[in-house]
């Protein structure tokens, strides 16, 4: 008799994987929990900001992460000062800094101003990226939300994706000349591909069980897209956004090397002719800084838009 009653009370073993699949976020955030025991130490740290909980560890960490880059710059300066490498080939950090300041303060005939060039490059980037992003998201929606759309759009995008982006430059020059248009198109194309692929995959990977729950709640097609599909696709779409920004910056740098008469790429090609590696380094640093800033912006966006994922940590 006792054996009989034992049987049906068993909780089903099959529920565990279901649970795990239902909540993809907790496994990603959970590993930081075990570090909690370290927290009592933190008040002794210098530079400790007043914000509670999660962010403070990141910030303390950020300072620690500055140590090695600063050390490299110092070493670079020491090597240059000691005369171990020629200042022509590798100008020391101090020289690069002075060059940067003079590029900003003087409007030289050879280079123009640094900020002017930066604006030209930024504008190319902004236009190209906006065009690429709008096209990518539109196409991903078309392909993601209907079978017909998928059959129409996805094969073309998969073909585009396999084309070597920079191999298209000669063709673009023939088609679009050497003005702004081929540059903008190259950036747009570079930005569009990863964003499309990720947004499409994000839409298609939305949890079918949530979609079923939505149907059981009687959601209309529009409500389904708005409440279930788009928010479900957002995490991966944002990953795609970061990737596409990276590719777009790269496309800008490459596009600007080709027949530019303004912009950061123009400064670099001028500096190459005058053997001014210090100027080249300044321009490269500006590219890097712009890339970092846009990446930080997307991460900020992620933090706002995906607040529901950090729910576990902030409680």
């Amino acid at each position: 008799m006792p054996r009989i009653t034992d049987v049906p009370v068993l909780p089903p073993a099959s529920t565990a994987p279901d649970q795990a699949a239902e909540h993809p976020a907790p496994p990603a955030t959970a590993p930081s929990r075990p570090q909690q025991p370290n927290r009592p130490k933190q008040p002794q740290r210098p530079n400790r900001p007043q914000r509670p909980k999660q962010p403070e560890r990141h910030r303390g960490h950020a300072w620690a992460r500055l140590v090695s880059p600063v050390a490299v710059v110092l070493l670079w300066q020491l090597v240059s000062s000691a005369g171990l490498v020629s200042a022509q080939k590798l100008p020391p950090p101090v020289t690069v800094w002075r060059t940067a300041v003079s590029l900003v303060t003087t409007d030289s005939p050879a280079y123009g101003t640094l900020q002017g060039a930066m604006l030209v490059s930024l504008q190319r980037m902004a236009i190209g990226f906006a065009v690429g992003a709008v096209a990518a998201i539109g196409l991903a929606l078309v392909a993601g939300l209907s079978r017909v759309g998928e059959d129409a759009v996805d094969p073309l995008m998969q073909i585009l994706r396999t084309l070597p982006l920079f191999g298209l430059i000669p063709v673009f020059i023939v088609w679009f000349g050497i003005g702004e248009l081929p540059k903008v198109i190259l950036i747009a194309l570079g930005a569009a591909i990863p964003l499309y692929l990720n947004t499409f995959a994000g839409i298609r990977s939305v949890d079918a069980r949530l979609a079923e729950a939505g149907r059981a709640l009687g959601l209309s097609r529009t409500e389904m897209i708005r409440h279930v599909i788009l928010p479900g696709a957002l995490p991966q779409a944002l990953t795609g956004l970061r990737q596409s920004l990276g590719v777009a910056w790269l496309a800008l740098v490459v596009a600007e090397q080709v027949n530019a008469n303004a912009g950061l790429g123009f400064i670099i090609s001028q500096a190459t002719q005058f053997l001014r590696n210090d100027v080249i380094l300044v321009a490269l640093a500006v590219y890097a800084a712009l890339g970092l800033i846009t990446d930080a912006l997307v991460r900020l966006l992620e933090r706002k838009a995906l607040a529901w994922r950090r729910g576990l940590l902030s409680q």
Partner: protein
Amino acid sequence: MAPRTPLPVAAQATAARGLVREFDGRRVLDGLDLDIAPGEFVALLGVSGTGKSTLLRALAGLDRQVTGTIDVPDRIAVAFQEPRLLPWRTVLANIALGLRTREPETAARSALAEVGLTERAQAWPLTLSGGEAQRAALARALVREPGLLLLDEPFSALDALTRMAMHRLVLRLWQRHQPAVLLVTHDVDEALVLADRVLVLAGGRITFSAPVDLPRDRDRDRDHPALIELRHELLRQLGVSQEG
């Protein structure tokens, strides 16, 4: 309290006739008939893979490949084994989702109060415990004032203590709102504690049906001879008992 047989065949009764559903040539539902009276609490038992969830999805209108006739109340609500709350909407927004009433948020708030989750209204679902999430899912189902409430093993992922609390909550809500309930479960004791009538699904049909004629505080009364006898019979029907 529980409305029992016989009830007049009202518009809000649930009736399914000759349901057939095949998966890859395998008949999971094979000419199944089922009746649920308005306000009746029915538990459906069956071993794994007998098509309990298939039947529930058919009644919920989530399966378009099922054939046969189905008459169900206008408003149906489902609570699944997993809470299936949208993680990117607050608990309150989840409850109000798709509500066509005039003030969905007010209705959602009172539903949350009923399941004791008023304070978690603005929380993200991922911050809820398993029991809280399942209570929210119940609130989301009940706020629709369904004529038929379909429960697909909603307690099976919960720990034993939470499950007992959930049983009491479900009974209280059922007595207040009076929906017909179809509870799919593979837990015989759960079925006996909650239901007016227990069914066994086997071979694609309802093969066993018996009323549970006992007062409602049955979890305190597990050793009642009638319950023991019925439990025995159900286990035999499910092919678990040694005497079977």
